[in-house]
Every structure is written in structure tokens, then in C-alpha cells.
């Protein structure tokens, strides 16, 4: 008891210090983004604004709105399709094991670790041939394909928790492969779909390499547009910070409201399920 009297305040001090480190960028983003341009200078970076000025938000939003829309057109179908494929694969790999199914699974899984640079040159050639280069559809396709490993892994780990006896007794009752999937597995998968959906939504929203190499100007998703905004010659830091916040908002909101599932996805995606 005596020890905990000293230890508790010490513990809080350490945790609060680290909290400061983690919150610095939030402070900088928020404070800078609501400053009028003449207060955005190097010397006053940390000071609070004299008055709230939201013009940087309207300017950033005006520049980023089309790209924001692109990102939604990209993320929603890509998330849904890759989650469905993951559920199908996870069902087979966990409940209909066959000789070599573990090798097939490992082979699929490898795809989530590769540096995407190592497939990028042929991928762009392929998309050009198909007429999908510089289209959101092309980007959706790319994210579906390279999302297969992680969604398969997550659903396999998720379905591993459904007891095999349930499948066996359904088979006894005459249910077949598709029937079991449709009437038993899918209804049990809702939280699995939430976890995988959040994970894919966040990752595809935040992705940069594919987006930057496959799309140009008016087809670009938000992260590329944000990078262009910060790379431009006139450095209006308030607009940049407002832009960064706008770009981060959808995934931040998902995290704030569904953070539990986000962390569950993180744990489910780290191979050892």
C-alpha cells in the first residue's frame, strides 16, 4: 500500500508526459488551421490565434472536395468487395480444409507483406492495356486484389472461433456448402464484417503509393491531393493543416466511434490469430 502511494502519482506523470507527446500534432493542427494567414508565421507557431478564422477550412475544402468524393467512390466498393472475397476464402480455409489448403493460405498471405513497388510496373502496364489506368474503377480493382490476403486472414481467424461441430451437425441435417455459408456463417459474421470493413476502409482511405501512381489530377483520391497541396510552392500552413484535418476526419471519426473494432482488426491482422 505504501509503495502504491508513491507509484501512482509517478505513473500518472509518466503517462501524462507521453500523452503530451502524442497530442502535440493535434494541437499544432487545430491551432494552425484556425489562424488567419498573417498569424501563421514561424515565431507564433505555438501561440493560440487571436481570433478564430475558419477561412482556411473553406479554402482547403474548396480545393479538396472533388478528391474527397473520389476517395469515397474508391473506398466504399473496394471495402465491400474485398470483405466479401475475404469471407468466402476464410470460410473455405477454416471450415473446408483440403490437402494443401494451408499452403494455399500461406501463399495468399504472402501477398500482404510484399512491397507494392515490386508489382507496380507490370500493374500499371496491365491497367493501361485494360483502359483502367487513371480511373477510380482501376484503383478499386487494385485495392480489391491486394486486399484479399488481409481480409482472408481476418475472416479465417474469425471463423476459427465458430465450432466445427456446428458445421458438422448442419451437414447431418442435410445442409450443403452454400447453405451453411448463407444461412449459418454469414449471419454469424456481422461483427467480422464490421472489423474487416473498418480495417479496409481505414487502410484504403490512407493509402498513397497506388493512388499516386495510378491516378492523375481529377481522379486522385484525397491523400494524393493533400500531398500536392503541401508540396505546392506557396506554403500556406493554415490551409495545409486544415486540409490534413479534413483528410484525416473520416478515419478519425471511424476510430472515435468504432475504435474497439479497429483495435480488434489490428490484433486479428497480426497473423497469430
Amino acid at each position: 500500500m505504501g509503495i502504491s502511494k508513491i507509484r501512482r502519482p509517478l505513473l500518472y506523470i509518466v503517462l501524462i508526459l507521453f500523452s503530451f507527446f502524442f497530442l502535440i500534432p493535434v494541437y499544432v493542427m487545430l491551432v494552425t488551421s484556425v489562424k488567419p494567414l498573417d498569424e501563421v508565421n514561424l515565431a507564433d507557431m505555438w501561440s493560440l490565434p487571436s481570433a478564430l478564422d475558419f477561412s482556411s477550412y473553406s479554402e482547403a475544402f474548396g480545393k479538396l472536395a472533388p478528391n474527397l468524393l473520389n476517395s469515397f467512390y474508391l473506398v466504399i466498393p473496394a471495402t465491400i468487395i474485398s470483405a466479401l472475397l475475404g469471407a468466402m476464402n476464410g470460410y473455405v480455409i477454416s471450415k473446408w480444409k483440403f490437402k494443401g489448403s494451408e499452403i494455399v493460405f500461406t501463399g495468399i498471405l504472402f501477398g500482404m507483406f510484399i512491397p507494392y513497388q515490386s508489382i507496380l510496373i507490370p500493374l500499371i502496364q496491365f491497367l493501361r492495356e485494360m483502359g483502367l489506368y487513371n480511373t477510380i474503377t482501376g484503383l478499386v480493382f487494385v485495392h480489391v486484389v491486394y486486399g484479399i490476403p488481409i481480409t482472408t486472414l481476418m475472416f479465417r481467424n474469425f471463423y476459427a472461433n465458430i465450432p466445427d461441430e456446428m458445421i458438422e451437425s448442419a451437414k447431418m441435417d442435410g445442409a450443403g456448402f452454400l447453405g451453411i455459408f448463407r444461412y449459418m456463417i454469414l449471419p454469424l459474421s456481422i461483427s467480422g464484417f464490421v472489423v474487416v470493413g473498418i480495417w479496409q476502409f481505414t487502410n484504403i482511405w490512407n493509402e498513397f503509393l497506388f493512388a499516386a501512381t495510378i491516378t492523375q489530377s481529377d481522379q486522385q483520391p484525397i491523400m494524393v491531393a493533400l500531398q500536392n497541396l503541401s508540396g505546392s510552392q506557396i506554403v500556406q500552413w493554415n490551409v495545409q493543416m486544415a486540409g490534413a484535418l479534413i483528410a484525416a476526419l473520416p478515419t478519425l471519426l471511424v476510430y472515435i466511434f468504432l475504435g474497439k473494432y479497429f483495435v480488434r482488426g489490428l490484433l486479428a491482422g497480426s497473423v497469430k490469430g
Partner: protein
Amino acid sequence: MEPAKTVHANQQPIVQVKKRKKLTTDRWKSILFLTPSVILIAIFVYGFIGWTGYVSVSNWNTIVPDFSFAGMKNYHYLLNDFRFQADLRNTLAFTVLFIALVIILGMGLAILLDQKLVRGESIFRNIFFFPMALSFVVTGVVWQWILNPSTGINLFLKNFGIEPKWYTDTNILAGFEWGKIEFGLPVAIIAVVIAAVWQMTGFALAMYLAGLRGIPDDIREAARMDGCTEFQLYRKIIIPLLKPITVSVIIMMAHISLKIFDLIYAMTGPGANFVTDVPGVNMFETTFRGNYYANGAAIAIIMLLSVAIFIVPYLWSNRKGES
């Protein structure tokens, strides 16, 4: 006895045939379910890696594709290239620092949060977790502003008489001549590591918290009964029990750091003298800005090999562990 045997012999095959037939259709359906994904992965992962490998030994270093065989020329060029040598040094420095800090901070904070003493644990947890929901691009943009040497954090540090140059510093710590470059720890890399650690510590923290929750209380109790101090308890018992998690964290962080691109591209770019350049950024610029496709492909293949060294044994041992 004879008739009975015949009946038995007759019945068995009928049942078996019926059962096998049902199993076969379901078996076919299950394989059909898996087929689209297997085909896509076969083409877009393995086929395309092969294709990139093919490009990497070609002469395609202009905008017009040229698939004539170049042998190891492009690899030879890279290994003697100042920029690529700098990339290798930077990646090594980045990977070591990044993994070490993520593990120390992740495990340390997890142990602190796991103490029953802390109230408001979920608030702290959320503060440490939320950067993971952000894009590396956002992180890069914000940290570029914070670690800008003429502003940012230096406005405080100036009061103590220190003004680090952060990502604009071109010094190499503990440097010595190696190939065309000065090998050592580039100071500028530390700035990028700070941003990356800020973003990824939550990952390690989440893993370690889950691990700590999985350790039964009676183990701690038994150790305390035996006169273990808290420090010994962690050093001798808890941390060794967390080893599988540490291995997973190292693997996940290693593959992220070996392919890192967006954070550095958004935050610093290659940097003066390529002090913050990494293979991911180099590949992107070489291929898509410079049109040196074969060189870019060779960089990509080297990146893939460096990741595979970690990943293949890990996947292999995981697969074995499950069967």
C-alpha cells in the same frame, strides 16, 4: 455367415458412394469459392513479381519499353550508386531505431497501463492509439511543420541553447567511409523515426496489452509469494512470456519500415545528400519521374528480397505451428 457377409459387403459401398458423391460436389464448390482469389493472387502477386524481375534484368531505361536482356547490369549499377548506397544505410538506421523505440515505448506503456493503479486507463489508451487511424501522409505533413528547424519544437529548445537541424541535418553520426558514402547514423533520419514512432507505437501497445491481459493473475501472485520484486517479476517472468508478441511486433514493424515510402515522401523527400532517402522513395522517383524502369524494377526486387528474409521464415513457422 456367408449371406451376412455379402449384405455387409453390398451395403458398405452403397453408403460410401452416396457419401462420397455429396462430399465431392461440396468439395468442388469450396474449391470454386477459393478459385477467383487464388487466380488473382497468382497473377497479380506472383506473376507480377516475376514480370518485375524480368524488367529488372532488361534494358528498359527510357520511356520506350526495351526488353532486351541486360544481365545483372542494373543491379551492378545500383550497388555502386551513391544514392542507393545511402538508401541502404538509411533503411538500416531507420529500421533498427524504429523497431527498438516502438518496442520499448509499446511495451513500457502497456506495462504502465496494465497496473491496476491507473484510473482513466481508456483515455490514455485512446490517446496512444489514435495516430494509427491516420494516414502516413497526414503524419508527414504535420511532423514536417513541427520539426521544421527554424520553427516548431525548436522555439522551445532554443531556450536551452539547443537547436537541432532535424531533417535538414546532413551529418552522419559515427560515420566512416564505405563504398561511395559515409556509413553511420544520419542525424536527419532521427526526425523521420520520431514521426514513425509516434504513428506506430499504438500498434505495439495494443499487441502488448492483449498479451498482458492473457497472462493469468496466479502467475504474478505465485511469483510475488516467492518474494519476487515487481521489477524481477517483469524482467524474469512477464517479459519472457511476451516473447511471441515481441516477435510478431518485430516482424510487422520490420516489413513496414523496409517498405516505407509515403511518410518520408510527404515529410522530407530524399533530403540533401539523400540523408533521408529510402529505397521506396528512390524506386518511385527513378521509375515514375526518371523513366528508368529497369533500375526501378531492380530496386523493387531488392526491397522484396529484404522483406522476404523476415517474412518467409515467419509465415513458414506459423504454418507449421498450426498443423
